């Protein structure tokens, strides 16, 4: 009974939050319509609000973070689920990776400012000098950039990827491994041809959920991404995300700008909810599928 009450309360709360955001966003929604999403100017003084560069920044930073974190996270998950290493060492690695999730976002932001930004400035300038003709690598290399934010985000979503991938790798029935060995497969053939494909939906789900986490991540990104609403192809240029935009501008906003920020918040909620629901759906289907293998 208490459980039922708590879940009803949670659902009501979620509906209330979304409702409140939409209510506050309504003036901007009715005024700017879909032009808000396709517009590339964000100029509060002129009351022109378009979030396309920010939407692109959100998607790009999250995608880049995922691109960096997925191979690494999968590799760690594999080493944690196989017995290449003694159990004690695996336990330590697992603990350390889980600890990454416990570090506050603002600390990642500070670390990014003191460690990652100087690195990106130094090596970014070198890369831009040599390969600047490629639009993605064009200079100048400001430290605050899409790349900086993505590097730190990659580290932040690593525990999500590792934990979910590991549990889906562990869930692969031993009988499949045994079957593969009995057919004359080596360990790596078994891992690459049977274990990973069997766990693939879970690995995909881990990626989707990590993507969702990266999109909503605020503090560290706001400290590192440079908060620029200008469109740029270069990974070394400053950019912005929906969550960082909200964090940076909300305190000083008034009038229609508040409403415009609420509109942006509604988009963010819509995107993260969508991505998380998709991730959970894939994960659930996976669990059903592997249950059938037992």
């Amino acid at each position, binding site marked *: 009974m208490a459980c039922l009450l708590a879940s009803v309360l949670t659902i009501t709360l979620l509906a209330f939050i979304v409702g409140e955001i939409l209510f506050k966003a309504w003036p901007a929604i009715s005024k700017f319509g879909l032009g808000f999403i396709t517009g590339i100017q964000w100029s509060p003084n002129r009351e022109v609000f378009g979030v396309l560069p920010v939407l692109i920044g959100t998607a790009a930073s999250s995608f880049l973070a995922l691109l960096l974190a997925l191979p690494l996270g999968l590799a760690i998950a594999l080493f944690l689920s196989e017995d290449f290493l003694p159990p004690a060492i695996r336990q330590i690695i697992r603990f350390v990776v889980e600890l990454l999730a416990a570090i506050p976002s603002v600390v990642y932001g500070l670390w990014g400012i003191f460690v990652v930004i100087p690195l990106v400035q130094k090596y970014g300038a070198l890369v831009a000098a040599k390969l600047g003709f490629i639009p993605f690598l064009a200079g100048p290399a400001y430290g605050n950039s899409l790349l900086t934010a993505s590097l730190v985000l990659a580290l932040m979503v690593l525990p999500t990827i590792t934990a979910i991938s590991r549990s889906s790798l562990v869930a692969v*029935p031993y*009988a499949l491994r*045994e079957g593969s060995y009995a*057919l*004359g*497969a080596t360990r790596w*053939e078994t891992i690459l*041809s049977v274990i990973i494909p069997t766990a693939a939906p879970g690995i995909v789900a881990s990626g989707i959920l990590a993507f969702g986490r990266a999109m909503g991540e605020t503090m560290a990104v706001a400290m590192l991404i440079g908060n620029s609403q200008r469109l740029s192809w270069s990974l070394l240029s400053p950019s912005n995300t929906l969550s960082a935009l909200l964090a940076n501008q909300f305190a000083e906003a008034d009038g229609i700008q508040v409403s415009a920020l609420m509109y942006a918040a509604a988009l963010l909620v819509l995107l993260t909810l969508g991505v998380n629901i998709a991730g959970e759906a894939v994960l659930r289907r996976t669990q059903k599928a592997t249950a059938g293998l037992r």
Partner: protein
Amino acid sequence: MTTEASQHPLELTNDFAPGESNFIKVDNFKFFYGKKEALHGINLEIPSRKVTAFIGPSGCGKSTLLRNFNRMNELIPGVHHEGDITIHGTSIYDPSVEIIALRRRIGMVFQKSNPFPMSIFENIVYPLRIAGQNTRSVLEETVERCLRSAALWDEVKDRLHDSALGLSGGQMQRLCIARAVASRPEILLMDEPCSALDPIATAKVEELIIELKKDFTIVIVTHNMQQASRVSELTAFFYLGNLVEFDNTRKIFTNPSMKQTEEYITGRFG
């Protein structure tokens, strides 16, 4: 694949003699899980192209012995053995024997069917693919041959590229048999292959076993004594890690020499 394997000491196809009486020879074989001795000096000669059944109560060592023939037990940490097992005169523990090649010459079917979550087609060609065989015509020919020999072809020929997980329990087990014969092994090991199947599916698999012994040397572990008497020509009765009696199946089930055997098959213990 075959050219690579034919340079191998365990490639048996060329000089394989049907009716060989000591095809698999177990010589004073002891097996240990850590310190625990699970098999106490087994001596046994298994003839080719016959069905040999291993029976006995749980924990008697019958599965342990079976799983040594393709060295699957070595996946368990902390195990070791004494004595020897030879197949066609070559020790399976000879340093020149590659475990991968050995397992390719010996098919294995498990208690619970274990199809991979891929298509029926890809399940069967898996052993070929890992051996580097990707020629379409060879793969297609193998799939048809294996499914026919597992009596599954007519049931699945129109949905070869559907997931194997959509098959019924009995079909899955026959698919695993088809997969086990894909790399043309000489020996087929079956570890209680029907224990998870209903009686109708069991009857089909038993029929299949009798059919397959024309081409394979089959060793089957079973808890079901009726099954042993239906499908096998020879039966070995194990008890507490010892081979108690090994003889013609008919003799074991009608006139066993040992009192323990008689007590087990008449259901007085086990």
